């Protein structure tokens, strides 16, 4: 597959209503916060996980679209593994020292796994060519305004163990807690390098699938914790040349997000409370903008 010929940057907006977009393992699964500004954070790896999940749902087992970093979902593969172990004759454990062989391995991984081709992967057991740097790079997403996480206590009308039931003399209730953000609009920035795409074979088709994943991934990631999440805007900057035609920060600065009503009294609670504007005049020549969502 021919690789993409242009450099891209993108601004991706998504929001959450009454849910937890990304829990912080350090803070008892509270939504991640930037302690200096109280703005919410969603890590790059959190978003990449959802992209992988979308692609593995969308492409199922289509050849070339396998996902290397699986969330435990494809049990079939686990079973097949066992069969393969029996039918396969044992290979010699030698590592490919020669560069050619190492490169063949890397290429094969890129050709077969969408996420290796897109985000890269580390496959090193002393082989030099065993590390793939993917063309797509994402940064942490930050909320536009400070968010206030709420702790919601909930009850369960059952207990887990006999012992607990006895202690409560048959009352059988337990309490738990959920952390939510009433509303947060998050902004993420991403980069696609055409030059790295050449090396992994990340094609135009892959890029379109990637945009599709960004647009649709929250639709397939419903859960009790996340509640309502939605992709709101995807603005893509396409550079004419592979190396790019403008600094990334200039392009990002052209996308401005402001409150819909200046000096609004209430905290923002829906996407309608914001206006997103794209300053077309600030886009340098050689860069075209597409609003995919």
């Amino acid at each position, binding site marked *: 597959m021919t690789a993409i010929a242009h450099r891209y940057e993108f601004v991706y907006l998504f929001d959450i209503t009454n849910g937890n977009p990304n829990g912080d393992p350090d803070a008892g699964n509270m939504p991640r916060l930037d302690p200096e500004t109280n703005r919410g954070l969603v890590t790059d790896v959190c978003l990449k996980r959802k992209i992988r999940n979308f692609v593995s749902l969308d492409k199922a087992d289509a050849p070339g679209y396998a996902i290397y970093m699986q969330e435990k979902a494809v049990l079939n593969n686990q079973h*097949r593994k066992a069969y393969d172990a029996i039918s396969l004759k044992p290979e010699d454990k030698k590592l490919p020292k020669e560069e050619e062989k190492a490169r063949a391995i890397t290429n094969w991984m890129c050709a*077969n796994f969408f996420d290796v081709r897109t985000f890269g992967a580390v496959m090193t057991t002393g082989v030099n060519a065993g590390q793939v*740097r993917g063309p797509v*790079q*994402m940064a942490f997403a930050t909320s536009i305004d400070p968010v206030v996480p709420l702790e919601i206590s909930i009850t369960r009308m059952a207990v887990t163990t006999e012992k607990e039931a006895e202690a409560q003399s048959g009352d059988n209730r337990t309490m738990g807690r959920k952390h939510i953000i009433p509303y947060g609009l998050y902004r993420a920035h991403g980069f696609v390098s055409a030059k790295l795409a050449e090396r992994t074979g990340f094609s135009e088709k892959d890029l379109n699938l990637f945009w599709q994943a960004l647009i649709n991934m929250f639709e397939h990631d419903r859960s009790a914790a996340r509640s309502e999440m939605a992709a709101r805007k995807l603005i893509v900057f396409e550079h004419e040349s592979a190396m790019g035609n403008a600094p990334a920060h200039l392009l990002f600065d052209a996308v401005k997000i402001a409150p819909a009503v200046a000096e609004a009294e209430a905290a923002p609670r829906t996407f309608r409370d914001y206006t997103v504007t794209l300053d077309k005049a600030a886009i340098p020549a050689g860069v075209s903008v597409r609003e995919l969502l």
Partner: protein
Amino acid sequence: MAFGIKLYVWGDRACFTRPEMKVERVSYDVITPSAARGILDAIHWKPAIRWHVNRIHVLKPIRFESIRRNEVGGKLSAASVAKAMSAGSTAGLPNYVDEDRQQRAATILRDVAYVIEAHFELTAKAGPDDSVGKHLDIFNRRARKGQCFQMPCLGVREFPGHFKLLEEGEALPSSHGSLKGSRDLGWMLHDIDFEYGATPRFFRATMNDGVIDVPAWSSEEVKA
């Protein structure tokens, strides 16, 4: 230096991991020469040249923040890929994230800005067409236009580094008042010596009024 360049680099977050604390990552106080070289390489590099960082200007107060993430524990072995290739199937290769999970905290830098002063020299791989002027022109042209081979990053790829070329004679952005005085930053990674089996080499970094003079790669002060 006649062909030195100055690049202004900044970003919201950065993590220049200390090699002695890389499991639960802790960043150095400032950018390392090696990370600075990586940023220059991301804009323009050819086997014919090698970048040398001469000086680092630290412009913003040094502040840290901690973040914990779920990460993957293992790496894929080349042998298992070779096996899958001969079997012609990707079954068995996927890595199940929740079966091989590590939670790791990272202590990272917040709101950083640096000026990197650097030059490059031609290597043994330089052909007859390679001249200092040519590569310098390419670098300057790209940096001026915001072009890059890949988006430069501040230590790790999730923290992109924005950049701007400082033209010759252009004034340096001013450095924060709290950086005045002299500060010993301890032993810091200079760079990795790839010619000697990826040996790390260190130097004693001191910051005077926000400026770190980086000793030459070949000098005595840089120790393996």
